[in-house]
């Protein structure tokens, strides 16, 4: 009877072959309640649950909703011998809990309360506003996160402005909750030892919140970028691309390795991926100008130029072997990250949030296996032909 409430799209039971280590065993989309993706891991009596809520609301409002839920979520989990964590991506609010499998229903009940109606009593709202704004400021009060933040504003303009929590009223918070915290739009990833069908049961029958009253959107209060202390120049370069994510991942890995040889103070190459929007992003910092001038002739070349030259240099040095090494490194990193229930839940959930596919992580892994030097070369050449988005933070 209960099972009938769920529309079981997929059930794959049994031990995975070597090429499906990240593939879920079951993906279900109940009529009432979050979609549920289950990976059966029978050997450990530990279960991890990651619930993601697509919330394209101002980060201040989402952050405030999470802070309002934090204390009961964390203390409730601790009483069960479990651990609760809250996180936020530009597109989703993430609620995670990991603990003994025997208290799985209680853990899901905690999640349900955490994304349920917020407690807006003054005693909670005031400190939660402060905590939310502190968390938002922490994302921009050092140079590197600030570079990321500014790049994100340019690359993903569809995302709402961050906003601030300080001026949000109880009414604003309620409207955001009613609009975005709809169970049918949420996705839970469960990794644990219980049979997949048992994992579904606690997610059934979650009620929708009432419709938001009125049409007023929550105000996006001005939240000026903090002024971080900057002692050396930072730069971010972002190349928009439509290349396949797996190819971009290998390209970023090769580029990161190459740029690490430039003797910069710090340098990362990574790929950003939100649905169809993708970018290869380089973030670096160099010595302050006075020290750099004395250091070497190479340092006299502007940092942006040195980083841009990296694309051509990697393309010129590309070999099937170097691509294979980068590809294997990424695969191994995924296997190692997925070795704990919470790590695997995070991996499956994160790929699902980006792709909408329950087996997005496994598909990415399968695509990764097929990436070769020609794919990477094509991407590097195409990126070298376009002007990147550049963001600088100077002392």
């Amino acid at each position: 009877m209960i099972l009938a409430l769920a529309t079981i799209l997929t059930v794959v039971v049994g031990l995975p072959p070597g090429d499906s280590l990240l593939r879920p065993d079951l993906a279900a989309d109940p009529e009432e309640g979050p979609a549920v993706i289950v990976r059966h891991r029978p050997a450990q009596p530990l279960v991890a649950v990651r619930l993601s809520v697509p919330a394209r609301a101002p980060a201040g409002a989402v952050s405030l909703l999470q802070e309002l839920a934090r204390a009961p979520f964390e203390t409730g989990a601790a009483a069960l011998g479990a651990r609760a964590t809250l996180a936020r991506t530009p597109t989703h609010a993430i609620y995670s809990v990991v603990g003994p499998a025997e208290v799985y229903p209680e853990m899901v009940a905690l999640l349900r309360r955490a994304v349920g109606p917020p407690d807006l009593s003054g005693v909670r709202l005031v400190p939660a506003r402060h905590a939310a704004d502190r968390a938002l400021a922490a994302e921009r009060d050092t140079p590197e996160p600030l570079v990321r933040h500014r790049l994100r504003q340019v690359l993903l303009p569809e995302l709402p402005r961050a906003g601030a929590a300080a001026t949000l009223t109880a009414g604003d918070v309620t409207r955001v909750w009613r609009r975005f915290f709809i169970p049918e739009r949420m996705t839970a990833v469960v990794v644990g030892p219980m049979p997949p069908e048992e994992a579904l049961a606690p997610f059934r029958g979650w009620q929708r919140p009432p419709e938001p009253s009125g049409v007023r959107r929550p105000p996006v209060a001005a939240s000026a970028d903090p002024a971080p202390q900057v002692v050396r120049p930072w730069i971010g370069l972002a190349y928009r691309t439509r290349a396949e994510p797996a190819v971009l991942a290998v390209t970023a890995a090769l580029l990161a390795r190459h740029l690490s040889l430039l003797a910069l103070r710090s340098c990362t190459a990574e790929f950003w991926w939100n649905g169809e929007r993708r970018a290869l992003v380089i973030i670096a910092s160099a010595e302050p100008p006075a020290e750099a001038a004395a250091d070497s002739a190479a340092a006299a070349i502007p940092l942006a130029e040195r980083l841009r030259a990296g694309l051509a240099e990697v393309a010129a040095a590309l070999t099937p072997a170097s691509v294979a090494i980068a590809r294997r490194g990424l695969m191994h990193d995924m296997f190692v990250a997925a070795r704990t229930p919470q790590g695997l839940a995070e991996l499956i959930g994160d790929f699902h949030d980006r792709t909408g596919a329950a087996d997005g992580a496994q598909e990415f892994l399968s695509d990764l296996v097929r990436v070769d030097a020609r794919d990477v070369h094509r991407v590097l050449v195409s990126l070298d032909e376009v002007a990147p988005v550049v963001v600088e933070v100077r002392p």
Partner: protein
Amino acid sequence: MRSTGAATAAQLAAATALFATLLATPARSQGRLVILDEPAGTAVGLAVVINAGNAWETAAESGLGRLAAQAVVERARPRLAALGATASVACDATTVRFSLVLPAPTWQSAAELFFETLFEYPVGADAVARARAAVLEPVRMEEHSFTGDIRAALARARFGRSSRWARPPCGRAETLAALGADDVERMIRTRFLPTRATAAIVGPVDTAAAGALLRRWLSDSDLPVLVPAPDPTSGGHIRVERATVTTWVALAFPFDRDADIEALRLLGFRIREAVGPSPARPEIFDAAVELERHGDGGALIVYLVTAPDRARDAADTVRELIHRSAAERMPAAEFDALLQRYRGHRLLALAAPEARAMDAALELFFDGAFHPAAERVADLTRSRLRHAADALGTPASAVLGPPPGARGGTRTPPGADG
């Protein structure tokens, strides 16, 4: 949501039966090796515990085992990295411990490579130099930290100033800097031997292949690993004066060879909950509980960082809690809630395969047998907790802080104990 395949009732029934079987037949081992096949995992944990801690070292070679182990890791590191594997080393008075994380597709090659490096090939001077660089920095930091000072003071209170058991477990910077590649090779040849080791592999492995691999490199005999034990000592007390604004308190409650280790872990968890930092205890800044083992038992060690004027009260709270735990059984409901939290704490600590592998290898090393942690925890009772607390001896203790009545001062040279 996208489709990922189809299922049959037979497959479902088979998987359910397999799950039931796995739960009903927990792994056990009596030898020196444990293999836990955990299907559906993505990485393998490998742990090797060697009887080669600083309890075996002379003063002039203090830290040699740690340095040698790091040299093994440095020698293997580039080739392990190519296989996506990582290795790390830890040490104490009685053990040198290797912990490896191996991706599922490459675990066998990586494990073979590690054992070859450990048991077959010289590590070479380059690896020793890299190892020295890796080991020296943290040792120097420990030697110049209050954490290192309180640990050293407690060790002297427990074993006496001249005992090798009182030396820092990872050696001294002075000796580490002087030890050469020849010393390291000698240590590896004479101490890093299969007969002195226990090992465990945990993860999605073929049990037969894992067994064959371990038996090829390690002894699976039932001969005990002879773990060294210190001379019997009684609880002493050392006070160290430093220009600190907080006071460090350390208490080591000794237990003997037959102690109930899992019950002692539960007691340690109870103590940490009762005296750890919380809004209700603003005078406590940090707390840690460790279980240290050697061949004749070990000690339950409690560290507290407190406001200076509350240090004595904090230590008394710990003593009183242990006394109360020994004198009376906890109320059933209170114990059930404690056990629930402890079960989660243990399972979370063992969430990664390398943690479960190390837990298994250490159990074999000290107890000569292995039972899965979930089973050990499930068997805990109120009586066992009481008996474990009752079996603890008089604690040795150390205190590090400002002189009584002082608010700061100059740093006293190490060793100028009160």
